[in-house]
């Protein structure tokens, strides 16, 4: 990739960022909703950890922090869906995708750049307020060292790439199914459950816990949260997320190649 095309993808990412920045009222509404959900969840977690302190190796403050991190990252990492996939699926369904394939830009990188731009905006716009609210009104455990925050941000960005790679596969299913609503829904279900959004993955009992922690979705919330909470080493986490990101992006390429041949067959 040359410098010129690198600049192109930066511009695409900036476009994605700006595009979401125009939805100001919607963003404010989202911040409000994230904060209310955090409030409801935080009390249930407090009750749970009252009953069993040190559940899953977290103390109460860590559990509370986990709730607010979940609300802060939900939109950025598109854990409950949302992002580029609706648009890409619509382009596949209508056949507009054929035009995209002729463009002198890589389809996967183009959408990755746009989605990272979106995610960075939502990280800032929808992430900060719930986390600040949570840390003002509840006992949280946040690190003081800048290096831990930096490592956390790297883990979040890697989580963004893994999240993109998963949703790219979901979107490409539209080449075969045309109506991808069902696959998208299944994608959310698995994502919500296996990312730790419903319950931290270290609280899951026995073998179930070990399986969900090894799956790619744990890169979305559990991995960055554990880096911030000092429960996981930064390097090991980066390697785990990086391996999943590369593997899933590679599968995405293979599927894309197969799908593109399909476009030629359909002539659309």
């Amino acid at each position, binding site marked *: 990739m040359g410098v010129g095309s690198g600049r192109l993808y930066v511009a695409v990412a900036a476009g994605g960022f700006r595009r979401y920045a125009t939805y100001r009222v919607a963003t404010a509404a989202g911040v*409000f*909703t994230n904060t209310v959900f955090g409030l409801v969840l935080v*009390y249930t977690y407090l009750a*749970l950890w009252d009953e069993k302190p040190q559940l899953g190796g977290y103390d109460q403050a860590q559990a509370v922090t986990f709730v607010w991190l979940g609300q802060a990252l939900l939109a950025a990492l598109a854990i409950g869906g949302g992002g580029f996939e609706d648009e890409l699926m619509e382009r596949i369904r209508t056949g507009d995708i054929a035009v995209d394939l002729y463009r002198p830009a890589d389809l996967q990188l183009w959408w990755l750049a746009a989605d990272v731009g979106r995610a960075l905006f939502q990280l800032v716009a929808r992430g900060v307020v719930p986390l600040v609210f949570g840390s003002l009104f509840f006992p949280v455990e946040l690190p003081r060292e800048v290096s831990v925050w930096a490592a956390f941000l790297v883990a979040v960005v890697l989580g963004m790439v893994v999240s993109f790679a998963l949703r790219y596969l979901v979107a490409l299913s539209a080449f075969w199914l045309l109506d991808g609503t069902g696959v998208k829904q299944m994608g959310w279900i698995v994502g919500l459950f296996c990312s730790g959004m419903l319950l931290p993955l270290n609280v899951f009992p026995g073998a179930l816990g070990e399986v969900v922690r090894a799956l790619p979705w744990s890169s979305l919330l559990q991995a960055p949260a554990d880096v911030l909470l000092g429960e996981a080493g930064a390097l090991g986490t980066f390697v785990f997320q990086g391996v999943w990101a590369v593997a899933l992006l590679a599968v995405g390429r293979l599927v894309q190649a197969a799908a593109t041949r399909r476009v030629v067959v359909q002539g659309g």
Partner: protein
Amino acid sequence: MAETAHAAGRGRVAEGLRVYGLIVMMWVRSTMAYRTSFVLTAFGNFAITALDFVAILLMFSRVDALGGWSLSEVALLYGLSGVSFGLADLAIGSMERLGRRVRDGTLDTLLVRPAPVLAQVAADRFGLRRLGRVVQGLLVLGYALTVVDVDWSVAKVLLMPVMLLSGAGIFCAVFVAAAAFQFVAQDASEVSNAFTYGGTTMLQYPPTVFALDLVRGVTFVVPLAFVNWLPACYVLGRPYPLDLPRWVAFAPPLVAVACCALAGLAWRAGLRSYRSTGS
């Protein structure tokens, strides 16, 4: 005079229900044209809602009680809140699309039709797949009723269907009020999620879990506590939150009617303030 106005009002309600029924039937027929897609999305709806109950089960795999309530009692709260919310969501859940219609100007087409706007918006894109949520709630409720330890009386048995219907009424009022707010805010449909989805999530857990101010808020401001918390405390013989009097367990129908009336007024005010985008 008053009587004619009254009759006209009743005629308008009947007309609204008739229009609602017609549009709903149209959407059901169009849904049934793609049966596989319907079955899949209904199952998806079922599975997404079932997940929060799986999370509760996982919690109870590690503890015996939450806020002093057992799994069967929490399941009762969950089932009651899930069915009430599911019915409201099935009936008028698509109202959250109103903001989009205000933004893109397609609300105008509904305004010029000779039928009540509320009925048209409520029935818009009626999603039969939302039955998945109702079924999931009913299953958990059925499970809860078989395992929960209750000293049943006639009043308690009668309270069950009353609770479900009143709860659905209260949630419908929240949906309508949130839609009325969309006339002003246009782009803030997520705010309604805080009260609808957030509200039903809250009601799935015992009131003892939450801070008193939060319990006061959902009792006196947005009276969601009447959906299941207060009547369920009566059925289970548990102390009421906020030391409320015993009779409030039987207040849900009145609360539902009052909420719907207020939401109706809000809707009317919202509709009057509507200025088309002109596009």
